[in-house]
């Protein structure tokens, strides 16, 4: 999802959450069938990623062992057997040319995809929160300065600047960490805009004014009074930014500048699969399908979270009484 849309959708969540708490949030999330199904899929994927060593041990495989005997070197390295060499030992077949176990690489690839996106999203949120709150609560001068920095940040599309940064970072730097830092470090402007706008609104409300007047420090007020009220838009933004970050990592790896072999990543598998689709279609379809399912499930879950945090959003759209939020779509 593009940042402009993200800002619009997450920004629409009310800054002051209805006084209902976590329990009613879960109830409202569970009430949505699509979101519940998506949550199940996401849970499964997360468990798979966490249990990667266990699962591969169960299969008796590991992601980096070459099995030259399982590919037909005379035919250019095509896996021997149907469906890319599926067998009792190799549940999803093997990689063309090298014969590495596809199941193991996919499972470890899930770790990379989800892990990188998670760290990147967390970093985006943290930076966006700090910068947005500082702009809203700090001096006018600071607000101006941060506003200009945000402008510069907006002028740099994530893909382009991430690519460029990858050119100058020494090769020794661990790639997954680097990708997460790059995506997270440049993608904070959407979050900071929302936080700033919501914090400015909150600042004018009585309970925040009272806390300020009682002589507490700015950061104490921010942490104790503003942060809880910002939870809804922040969680919504995070839930919708997460799948976007998965796509960005896959894209960078697909371009050959992201995760480097031998570390497996779904995007990187697709680059190589490109040349194999006729001889070994599963080698392409499995990572492509998983990428699609993961991003779709996370997006549907994100939408569900948004609806659960802002029940009016759903009814507004259905009944058609939605107002406001239009100016954000620029």
């Amino acid at each position: 999802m593009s940042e402009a849309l993200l800002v619009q959708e997450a920004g629409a969540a009310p800054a002051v959450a209805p006084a209902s708490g976590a329990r009613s949030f879960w109830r409202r999330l569970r009430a949505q069938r699509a979101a519940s199904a998506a949550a199940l899929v996401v849970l499964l994927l997360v468990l798979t990623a966490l249990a990667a060593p266990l699962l591969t041990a169960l299969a008796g495989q590991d992601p980096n062992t070459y099995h030259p005997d399982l590919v037909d070197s005379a035919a250019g390295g095509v896996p021997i057997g149907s469906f890319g060499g599926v067998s009792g030992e190799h549940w999803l077949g093997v990689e063309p040319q090298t014969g590495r176990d596809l199941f193991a690489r996919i499972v470890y690839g899930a770790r990379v995809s989800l892990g990188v996106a998670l760290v990147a999203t967390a970093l985006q949120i943290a930076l966006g929160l700090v910068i947005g709150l500082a702009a809203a609560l700090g001096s006018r001068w600071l607000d101006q300065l941060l506003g200009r920095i945000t402008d510069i940040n907006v002028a740099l599309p994530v893909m382009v600047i991430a690519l460029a940064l990858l050119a100058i970072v020494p090769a020794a730097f661990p790639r997954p960490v680097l990708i997460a830092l790059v995506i997270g470090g440049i993608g904070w402007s959407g979050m900071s805009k929302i936080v700033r706008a919501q914090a400015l609104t909150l600042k004018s409300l009585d309970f925040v004014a009272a806390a300020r007047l009682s002589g507490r420090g700015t950061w104490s007020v921010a942490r104790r009074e503003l942060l809880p009220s910002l939870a809804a838009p922040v969680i919504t933004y995070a839930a919708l930014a997460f799948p976007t970050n998965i796509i960005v990592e896959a894209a960078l790896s697909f371009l050959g500048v992201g995760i480097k072999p031998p570390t497996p990543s779904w995007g990187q598998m697709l680059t190589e699969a490109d040349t194999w689709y006729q001889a070994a279609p599963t080698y392409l379809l499995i990572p492509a399908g998983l990428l699609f399912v993961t991003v779709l499930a996370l997006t549907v879950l994100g939408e569900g979270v948004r609806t659960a945090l802002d029940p009016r959003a759903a009814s507004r759209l259905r009944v058609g009484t939605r107002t406001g939020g239009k100016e954000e779509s620029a």
Partner: protein
Amino acid sequence: MTGFLLRRLGGAVLVLLALTVVLYAVFYVAPGDVAQIACGPRCSPAQVAQVTEQLRLDDPVYVQYAHFLQGIVAGRDFSTGTGAEHCAMPCLGVSYQSDQQVTQLILAKLPVTGSLVIGAFAGWLVLGVGTGVLSAWRRGRLTERVLTWLTLAGSATPVFVIGLLLIILFCSTLQWLPAPSYVPFTEDPEQWAWGLLLPWTSLALIESAKYARLTRSAMLETLAEDHVRTFRAYGVGERAVIGRHALRGAVAPVIALSALDFGTMFGGAVLTESLFGIPGIGRELVHAVKVVDLPVVVGMVLVTGFFVVLANAVADLLYALADRRVALS
């Protein structure tokens, strides 16, 4: 209105100026051994020394930056082994790996990326707005549910996945289309269109999802407004309400998003170009990153920033024209 315009343009220029400072600091100062990086891994010490001289890396940082900026706004001269080479404004430097001026390199790629973006843009606008209108019109019915899921699927698919599948389907399996390739429009317009058909389609399919969402929500918003209820009360038909009034509410946000996407993509539809082998700005950027051609990388980022800032300013202007209240605030 004029005041708004001037303020907006002034702001855009300042952002661009700041952008040059940031990029210079990040790419020419922070890495340290810049001459070696800019020159490439295979450069001899003599070549590195020449690059050091050309970029004036022995001067203080602000002098280096001043020369960099001077090149952009006024042009500058580079000493080559045999003499001086003039690099006209806007000079983004010289690639030490292809000995080409970066500005020339980008200008040569611009029509290629332009061909891709303009065709895809037409596609996603028609498809996206059409889908949005249809789902706002058939709201609450099966059509809307189906379209909503299709739109979700579209936004969950990376462009390179849909592109790969389209290539496999139409070029290998069905063999209806030749492998995608780029033929300049001036050479053969028909080949140009056939070669770009799949890239256009992939990009349009993915991008249209965003536009469908935006159009739908903007239209539903308008449909809920009092004046629309009044029209209905007067007996205006659903078709006229949707086509004439609700659609109007979607025009401004769609224009604004279009301007932004347009700007971003002119800086290189990186993935689409790489997948389909279209020799545009995005593919050149990926190449430059892989071979660490620093002046080209920085030049491309700067050009992208320029397009995005320009597009942002245009979007604001269009918004202000559509709604005069924006200009006053």
